[in-house]
């Protein structure tokens, strides 16, 4: 990663007027991180293509059995699969599901992790000790195995998939949030909120969490690729998204089965998936450098 860049040393009058809020600072630092910007731009393009592309592209369900599996050509940019379906459209449709799983499952993980960590950090003492001990123990458990069991036994339902993945990925978020909450617990503005007689829930959600959004956002961007990876892993084993729906994991699985004759079925979905993971990781790293107050000072 490129080293943290400094905000401009020359202070112009406009800057004094607008002030340098944390977000303003972070944005200017992020903009100078070329890899992170590239990652963000790639993600934006992919997200737009996956959301709106299918309205314009050929239908992913249109079969053309006469054509069968054909390599990349002018009409089918990325070739077709064995049923003659356009691979480009299939990747766009698969991307919708993959990204949706990524976002929804991350949201589940975020909700559980932030609440859990905030409660543990806010109450402290015995409650904190017990709650964090539980997290420590859960870290040691083979969760992937449980997700596999859940998916096998309770049908391969996409909502279960969201929940199962989210339920696995919240642990680190809980740890991060707890640490942050503890560090701001003794601040004056929290004291003030207490003195005003606000309820505990209001203090946590209205006063504390908005002040630790930075680390939460950073870790969220790093959770999305982990979640998408787990979804693709399950789909590859045949346990995730089920036909007729498809995700990138499903496409990669299909491609790996047919790669001996039709290499493009593996290479393109695999490439797009890896590109997405790359972009998310670079953006996440960039955000961490941009929002981490500690690293910006040294």
């Amino acid at each position, binding site marked *: 990663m490129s080293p943290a860049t400094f905000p401009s040393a020359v202070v112009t009058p406009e800057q004094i007027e607008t002030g340098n809020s944390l977000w303003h600072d972070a944005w200017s630092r992020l903009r100078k991180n070329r890899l992170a910007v590239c990652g963000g731009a790639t993600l934006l393009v992919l997200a737009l293509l996956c959301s709106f592309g299918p309205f314009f592209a050929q239908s992913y369900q249109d079969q053309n059995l006469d054509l069968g599996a054909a390599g990349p050509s002018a009409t089918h940019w990325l070739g077709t699969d064995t049923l003659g379906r356009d691979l480009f459209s299939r990747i766009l449709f698969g991307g919708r599901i993959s990204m949706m799983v990524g976002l929804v499952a991350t949201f589940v993980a975020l909700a559980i992790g932030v609440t859990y960590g905030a409660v543990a950090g806010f109450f402290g003492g015995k409650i904190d000790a017990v709650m964090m001990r539980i997290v420590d123990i859960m870290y040691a458990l083979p969760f992937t195995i449980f997700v*596999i069991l859940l998916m096998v036994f309770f049908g391969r339902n996409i909502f279960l998939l969201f929940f199962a993945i989210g339920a696995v990925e919240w642990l680190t978020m809980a740890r991060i949030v707890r640490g942050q909450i503890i560090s701001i617990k003794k601040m004056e503005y929290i004291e003030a909120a207490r003195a005003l007689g606000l309820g505990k829930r209001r203090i946590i959600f209205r006063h504390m969490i908005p002040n630790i959004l930075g680390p939460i956002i950073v870790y969220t961007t790093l959770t999305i690729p982990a979640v998408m990876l787990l979804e693709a*892993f399950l789909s*590859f084993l045949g346990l995730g998204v089920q036909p007729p729906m498809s995700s990138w*994991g499903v496409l990669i699985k299909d491609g790996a089965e047919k790669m001996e004759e039709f290499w493009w079925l593996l290479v393109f979905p695999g490439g797009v998936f*890896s590109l997405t993971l*790359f972009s998310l990781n670079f953006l996440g790293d960039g955000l961490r450098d941009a929002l981490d107050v500690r690293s910006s000072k040294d």
Partner: protein
Amino acid sequence: MLRFTFRRLLQIIPVLWIIITATFFMIRFVPGGPFTAEKAVTPEILRNLEAHYGLNKPLYQQYFDYMGSLLRGDLGPSFKYPNRTVNEIIGDKLPTSLELGFISLAVALTIGITLGTLAAVKRNSWLDYVCSSTAMIGICVPTFVLGPLLVLTFAIHFQWLNASGWYGPTDRILPCLTLGCVYAAYIARLTRGGMLEVLNQDYIRTARAKGASEARVVFKHALRGGLLPVVSFLGPGIAGILTGSFVIETIFQIPGLGREFVNSAFNRDYTLVLGTVILYASLIVILNLVVDIVQIWLNPKLKFE
């Protein structure tokens, strides 16, 4: 130190008990038994089968029976492979999976530590960028993409190696490389971070001031502290390699326990699923404990936390 080890050992028991109990009941509450998938069995035969495996007893009775035989180290008969016990199947398949896991771990550590150390010592040089971007590629190209791609290149295009199977020593190359690469990438990043932190410390400057050679400074003084993050990653890393083997064994058609586990889950082979989960869980929990102990041994500061 001894007290710590003992306390952690005691903690393992309730954790394993919870895992076993949770898995046991989860499997039993699932719609569809192990014999429902088979071609329409007549009700009589079904009853006989259930009686034979003790499935007609009340649930709590089955649970206590299972726990009892588990304490004696008996994981029961397999539901899908008649006349074979779960112990036999595990004994048959586990060595293959262990071999795959150990070689992959060795690959991951060798590549990862080398790349990470190089990147840290030559910080911000082209070498650093090459090592760091290689690591990023390793993290972002998942095993189930990398594996088939390697097969496509080395087995199908160049025909140097077999695409699948687990017979000769050359059959180990592709699976272990695939599984090891991802973790090599994580280890490289952690090594680089850890080494950078250590190389800035006073005792490294002291070593240099005493006239120690650069190699001695890096290998003798820095590496021990610099590898701490790698050691703490080994717990989740080993767990990841174990679960990663499910995919690798499927891709390369390796007759290991990982593939058996996924199949047994599909087949609803209750006892085999339970046995495998118990085995994996114990392995992971115990290895985590070992990692914790090694960590404290390497970094006595942690003892007071």
